[in-house]
């Protein structure tokens, strides 16, 4: 068989009706087979509880996992302000879910707890862990570390940060009928299947390199022994007050801070400043280490679309010729904001590479979990921003 995927998208106004419509549409595509798992991405403009009720009305007791997202990625392309429901029916893949709460208190513990729950109830060969975390609370790198403690350092972890109505607003994570905030939910995929992963960003360093001279967890205190915020004040000729008044997030999404990964590579992982403390410290959405070389990063539409092709090529290579059954794609919200009307081009470029009829499950995330850019598919996964991560599955 033995994996069938149904996709339903709804933009109906009524949250319950939209959830029900999307679920019904997805359900009708799995040819009356028993659903194994429901993956859903719901726009934060919807009443989350009503939307989940609508989905559950159709999918009943089928395990459900997902998160809030400003847009879905599917075979229908890129859709903002929608409810996307993906129903997987499979007798070759086993799905086991887990949840970790209180990310803001201890991101690492929450990540660990979710992965442990999923791992404990899994059967068969563990292949890949799909994780959705709160992006506005806690430290995403720590959440990942926690999950790696439970699953293994080089275990393939994919997924990303959920997105809300605003960068400070709540984001939602779903597990079955529960709608959580400040949490991480995950699903472990086990079975006799092959997994190929690829990730690329396309954001390039601009300006001279700088050094993080003082940092703690996800807070940069000093850069080049100067107050951290000065890097944005200098490059954007904006005052501290202007930047503090929420502008920093807007700028940070388009011009993030890139951490140079290793001396011999040209790869960077990016971090987005969420806010500026009164003393000028930059609070990032994930951790950063002291003494690391950093640069301001800039994105370009063409390079970003090229990077999507690059990520798809890496994932295909990693499958080593095995036929692609389905794909899970996460693209950073910054890419959608950069590409705007051309957002479909990124999806088209990926579909062109993996096959236009390959079922696609995905959404726009605020940060992505994936293997390191320069490494192969079995290298340690990292939390990155501004990237597109593509995971291909073959039975």
């Amino acid at each position, binding site marked *: 068989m033995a994996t069938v995927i149904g996709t339903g998208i709804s*933009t109906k*106004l009524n949250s319950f009706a939209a959830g029900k419509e999307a679920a019904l549409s997805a359900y009708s595509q799995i040819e009356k087979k028993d659903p194994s798992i429901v993956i859903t991405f719901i726009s934060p403009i919807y009443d989350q509880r009503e939307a989940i009720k609508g989905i559950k009305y159709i999918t009943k007791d089928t395990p459900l996992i997902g998160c809030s997202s*400003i847009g879905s990625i599917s075979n229908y392309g890129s859709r903002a302000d929608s409810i996307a429901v993906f129903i997987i029916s499979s007798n070759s893949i086993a799905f086991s879910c887990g949840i970790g709460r209180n990310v803001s208190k201890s991101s690492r513990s929450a990540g660990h707890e979710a992965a442990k729950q999923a791992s404990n109830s899994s059967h068969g060969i563990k292949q890949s862990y799909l994780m959705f975390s709160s992006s506005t609370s806690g430290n995403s790198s720590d959440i990942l570390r926690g999950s790696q403690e439970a699953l293994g350092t080089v275990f393939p972890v994919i997924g990303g940060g959920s997105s809300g109505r*605003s960068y400070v607003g709540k984001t939602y994570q779903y597990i079955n009928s529960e709608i959580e905030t400040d949490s991480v939910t995950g699903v472990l995929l086990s079975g006799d299947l092959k997994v190929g992963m690829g990730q690329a960003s396309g954001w390039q360093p601009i300006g001279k390199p700088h050094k993080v001279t003082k940092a703690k967890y996800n807070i940069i205190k000093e850069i080049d022994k100067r107050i951290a915020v000065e890097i944005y004040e*200098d490059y954007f*000729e904006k005052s501290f007050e202007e930047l503090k*008044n929420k502008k920093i997030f807007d700028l940070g999404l388009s*011009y993030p801070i890139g951490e140079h990964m290793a001396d011999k590579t040209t790869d960077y992982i990016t971090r987005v400043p969420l806010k500026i403390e009164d003393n000028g410290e930059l609070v990032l959405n994930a951790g950063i280490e002291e003494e690391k070389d950093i640069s301001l990063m800039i994105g370009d539409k063409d390079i970003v679309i090229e990077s999507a092709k690059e990520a798809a090529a890496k994932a295909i290579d990693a499958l080593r010729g095995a036929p692609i059954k389905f794909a899970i794609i996460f693209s950073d919200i910054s890419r959608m904001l950069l590409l705007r009307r051309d957002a479909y081009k990124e999806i088209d470029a990926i579909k062109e590479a993996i096959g236009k009829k390959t079922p696609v499950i995905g959404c726009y995330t605020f940060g992505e979990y994936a293997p390191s850019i320069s490494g192969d598919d079995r290298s340690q996964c990292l939390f990155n921003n501004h990237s597109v991560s593509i995971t291909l599955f073959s039975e």
Partner: protein
Amino acid sequence: MDIYILVSALTIGILFILYYFERTRRMGTERLNKRLQDIIDQLDSQAKIIIKTDLALNRVQEELDRKITGLYTLHELGKEASSTFNIENLLGLINQPFVLKLGFSKLLIMLKDEASGMLTTKSSISYSPDEIKKIELELNKKQFAGLLFKKERPILVNREMEIAGEEYNLLNTLNIESFITAPIIVKDEPVGFILMGNASIYGKAVEGDAELLFILASQIGTAIENTKLYTELFGSHKKLEMMVAERTRELEKLNEELKNLNKMKSDFISSVSHELRTPLTSIKGYASILMTGKLGDVLPAQKERLEKIDKHSNSLVHLINNLLDIARIESGKVQMDMKDISIKEMLDSITDILAPQIKEKNISLKINSKIKFDKIKADPNQLERVFLNLLSNAVKFTPEKGTVNIYIEDKHDDIQFSVEDTGIGIPPQDIPKVFQEFFRADNALDQKIKGSGLGLSLVKKIIEAHKGKIWFDSELGKGTRFTFIIPKY
């Protein structure tokens, strides 16, 4: 000692040379480092320019994207909107896909109620009925209307703005992250507003949206105006239609009344005629018996009176028969007895009957036939009455030595007969009354000539019973031509 001095001098010399070279090398490295640093700083400065340009380009690109999408979407709406005069239909076109295409997720179109002056929601997207109620209550309570109706500029608000006051408070009222509004103007007066916004921070309303929103508001304003005009026009049209219908109903009612009256008249005539005919037959019978002398000798003076009784009785019987026939035909009691008849035979028979009068007045009677057949289907007795009436009238009203012509023409499925005389003609004022019962023209000759005034009325009824038509042309002093047409079969 000398050697010691020499070695010391040499060492100092070498050290000095080494120091000199090291100093030169260091100075070189420093110069190089400084140069490199300058280049890096220069590149960094260029990076700042690139970032600045990139920011500006992104802004322009975003604005351009929004405008292209907006214009395309408005163009599509314009095409649809031009075919509707109904504001509800237009508002129906501004639906969720339309709003999403413009880059928004929320929409409110509110208009001021003419009577109460309160804002009421005409269209909304992504708001529940409960939310709408709450928003209406809030906007009307706080008198936001003045603010939202501002004609000079759009209202653009997002949470990042450093503004305080009512505009900013609207964000909470509307449960929204950013919005932009434009007033809807009708005849230079603001009557409402359109508001679009986003519940998510990722699609903020920007100043570039104002132009599109103004165009949209203007389209809605025009549609409202058009709807009003159309409604007024439609109302007038409906009123006119109602008046016409009302008048038609009145006419139908009158017509029905007339028909009833006519029937009553016919019934009355029929009844009276029957009542008259019975005693008249007796009178006529007794007069005949008296004239025979069987009941005693009849003096010449008595005979003369009895003959007058008989003659007038005959006239009365004829009159009554005609009246009865008209009544019967009108009421449908008499069916035409359709038979094949020979036109020639029928006309010969009639001219024979009228021969004495024709001869007496020395009138020339001609039959002009253009037909190649002779037989038609008609009621022979009734058609004879038609010709008899028309020809006797023609002879009666034609002076001596005049002419009477009969024309017969083939008209496809019909046959057309005309009886034309060179008589006195019919005065124009009498023309509409010619076929009315008991009508007699108001001229001296007509007064002299005896008649009941029922002949032409009967003729018309007989022709109509044959599914035909009759009409005439007349010129006073020159003559009259009666024409009738009936189906051949």
